[in-house]
């Protein structure tokens, strides 16, 4: 086993909830040491978000926190205290990257903004992840991934024909912003390796969302045309849709890209007569008659399980896949063989499932360590890394600096 890709890289995480912690979530299995700074007064908000294990609230029972923070270290410092700020600066002095997702201005008030930290460590890389960025008239607007989704316009393009815009079943802007943050900090590390320079990165969650909605943006900027809402249909592939199968709320997704795939589909589903049907003879006609085609395909799929449809069609060279719920995903043989979900052992609540990185490569740890209990690593971080004596730590604890 070779070295981990980011061995020796230390990250200070001044982040809570979802977007900012997503960056560290990606970097930890790569070998980075990620130190979360929080306090019992202001713990990571994800610790308090429902759901909690067995419905019992507690700082070490929040399931959102588990997913976003495996393998990180938690140190508790009350940032309202000047001594705590001094300790954060000491930590920055021995670190490579700082990630932060406070509302703009908060770090400046604390005396921890980029110019200050840069004077502590000149080549520091600092990533700021905020809803609207750190400049512009709306920068101070409070932002959560859900509340700012509408700002991007994305829900306008999600929904059923003739129906209202619909909301997506998870918060996509947080992970989208976090993953773009990963690209930015790794690129900045590369730049630092070449030049010795650090830098400041201003990332706005809303902007990463708009970056991933180019059809709608470009249709408007090129044509002053409002891009349509298309449910599960595709511009190029017809038919494409989600069709009902045997069972309660069971569905299969099918995408047919070419005439060859259409023919394979008709043969595999034993509908050779559709091959002769003029309404479906080419992609254009299949698009024109998509409603009728959806009805006919649905009448066929309802007789099978979604697995049966997937295997039958895929073996014939047609793209299809079940609409999995989480239980089915955990049990699925492919997902199991790839090892997508892994167990981690939480000190307070025992075995929990976590999702491993969505790719295989060298330089990534095979196991995920547990998400830290609050303040779990005070001794290691403050004692071993910063060299505070036991007496000094006890004193700081007594005075509520370590809190």
């Amino acid at each position, binding site marked *: 086993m070779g070295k981990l890709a980011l061995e020796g890289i230390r990250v200070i995480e001044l982040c809570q909830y979802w977007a900012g912690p997503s960056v560290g979530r990606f970097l930890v299995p790569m070998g980075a040491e990620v130190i979360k700074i929080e306090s019992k007064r202001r713990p990571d908000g994800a610790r308090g978000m429902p759901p909690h294990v067995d419905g019992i609230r507690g700082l070490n029972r929040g399931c959102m926190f588990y997913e976003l923070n495996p393998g990180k270290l938690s140190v508790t410092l009350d940032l309202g205290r000047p001594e705590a700020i001094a300790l954060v600066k000491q930590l920055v002095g021995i670190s490579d990257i700082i990630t932060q997702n406070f509302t703009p201005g908060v770090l400046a008030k604390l005396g921890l903004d980029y110019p200050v930290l840069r004077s502590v460590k000149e080549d520091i890389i600092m990533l700021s992840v905020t809803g609207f960025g750190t400049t512009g008239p709306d920068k101070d607007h409070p932002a959560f991934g859900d509340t700012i989704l509408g700002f991007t316009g994305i829900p306008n393009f999600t929904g059923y024909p003739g129906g209202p815009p619909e909301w997506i079943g998870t918060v996509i802007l947080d992970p989208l912003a976090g993953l773009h943050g990963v690209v930015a900090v790794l690129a900045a590390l590369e730049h630092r390796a070449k030049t010795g320079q650090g830098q400041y990165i201003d990332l706005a969650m809303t902007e990463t969302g708009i970056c991933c909605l180019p059809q709608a943006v470009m249709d408007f900027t090129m044509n002053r045309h409002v891009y349509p809402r298309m449910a599960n249909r595709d511009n190029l592939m017809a038919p494409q849709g989600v069709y009902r199968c045997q069972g309660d709320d069971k569905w299969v997704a099918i995408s047919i890209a070419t005439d060859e795939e259409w023919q394979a589909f008709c043969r595999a589903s034993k509908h050779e007569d559709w091959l002769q049907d003029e309404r479906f003879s080419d992609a254009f006609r299949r698009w024109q008659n998509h409603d009728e085609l959806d009805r006919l395909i649905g009448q066929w799929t309802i007789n099978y399980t979604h697995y049966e449809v997937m295997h039958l069609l895929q073996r014939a060279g047609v793209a299809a*896949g079940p609409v999995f719920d989480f239980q089915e995903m955990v049990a699925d043989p492919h997902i199991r063989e790839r090892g997508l979900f892994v167990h981690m052992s939480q000190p307070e609540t025992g075995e929990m499932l976590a999702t491993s990185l969505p*790719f295989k490569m*060298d330089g990534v740890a095979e196991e995920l360590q547990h998400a830290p209990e609050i303040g779990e690593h005070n001794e290691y971080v403050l004692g071993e890394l910063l060299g505070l004596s036991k007496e000094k730590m006890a004193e700081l604890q007594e005075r509520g600096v370590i809190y």
Partner: protein
Amino acid sequence: MLEKADMVAGPYCTKLLAGLGAEVIKIEAVGTGDKARTAPPFLDGVPHPERSGLFAYLNTDKLSITLNLKTETGRHILERLIQETDIFVAAHQSGTMEELGIEYRRLSQINPRLIMTSITPFGMTGPYKDYKGSDLIANSTGGLAIITPLNAEDPEKPPLKPGGHFADFFIGVIAAGASLAAVAQRRLSGTGQHIDLSQQEAIAYIILWPIMYYNAERHIVRRTDAPRMAPRHLIPCKDGHVWIQIIQPGEAEWQRFCQWASDADWATNELFKVEVSRAQYWDALKPLLSDWAMSRTKEDFVKASHDYHLTFEPLNPIEEVVNHRHLAARDFFVEIEHPEIGKVKYPGPPYKLSQTPWQVTRAAPRLGEHNEEIYVKRLGFSHQELVQMRAGGVI
């Protein structure tokens, strides 16, 4: 970087790195090019390989060459290019690259420092490794469709994917992150490596809610679940829609909302005072809140959000996104001059780096625009050979 990828996922990965200064050579199919060239929106709605807005956006700052990898010469040229490549991004339905003899194991013998980033629907191992996919199938098999739309009212309507190509964009940005991690790894080990990305896994990795509720209470999240938090809903108002969400579980935030809505009966109703109870009686609250919202504009909500410290946000129509004063103040949209499309606004940088700012220096290439640059000037073929390669269907 070398790119052999159609549509969105692979091209977004390389676009991100091109914006940070990487040179990206895009290999396109002879004659037809990247499939995104056939994808809307087109300038004036007229299909044309140089007029796709999707293609134009995804391929800024890249060089385009045409190359037929099914020919012996084509494969030979690919090997020449691989010798000088750091990262080769290949997005494909599984198996298609191996059929062409394009395998990491072989390419790494030509260039041991090569990083190869493979994007496939289900990854390159496991029982579904040869199965085909799409954005819809990734959303479906990755667990997002079964929970979308949020608060679905009609269980007879099918699960939905988010509009656009979000599964493709997610795997694209993840591929860029993994590729850069491999560059860091190469600094330590001296050798390149193969990254095997699964689009299904990308969706499973980002969605969180299902695994959270599974861990907490073995509950399987579905789009038709009763709301646990309320309001956390898109509500129609006088001139559009507004997202109304009470974030804090305590009572203070709801009370601030009720101060604004002090004229409404529901605002003084004890039943709705506590979050648990609002969620429980959401069916009763929703029509009251909706009626009330219908007499207010999006701007009213924006103002109230500011005055009462709430987080309401209107759903912006696309024209308001493109013309938004905040995004304008940040210079987010960038104007790019393209020979066919002309000068229009594109979504700009996803992040602003102080020392190495993201930039666009070149509009998306026309199909094969850089054949001469790459084949003659870089690889040393003569113009005569260029003619013959074209005649032979190699380029």
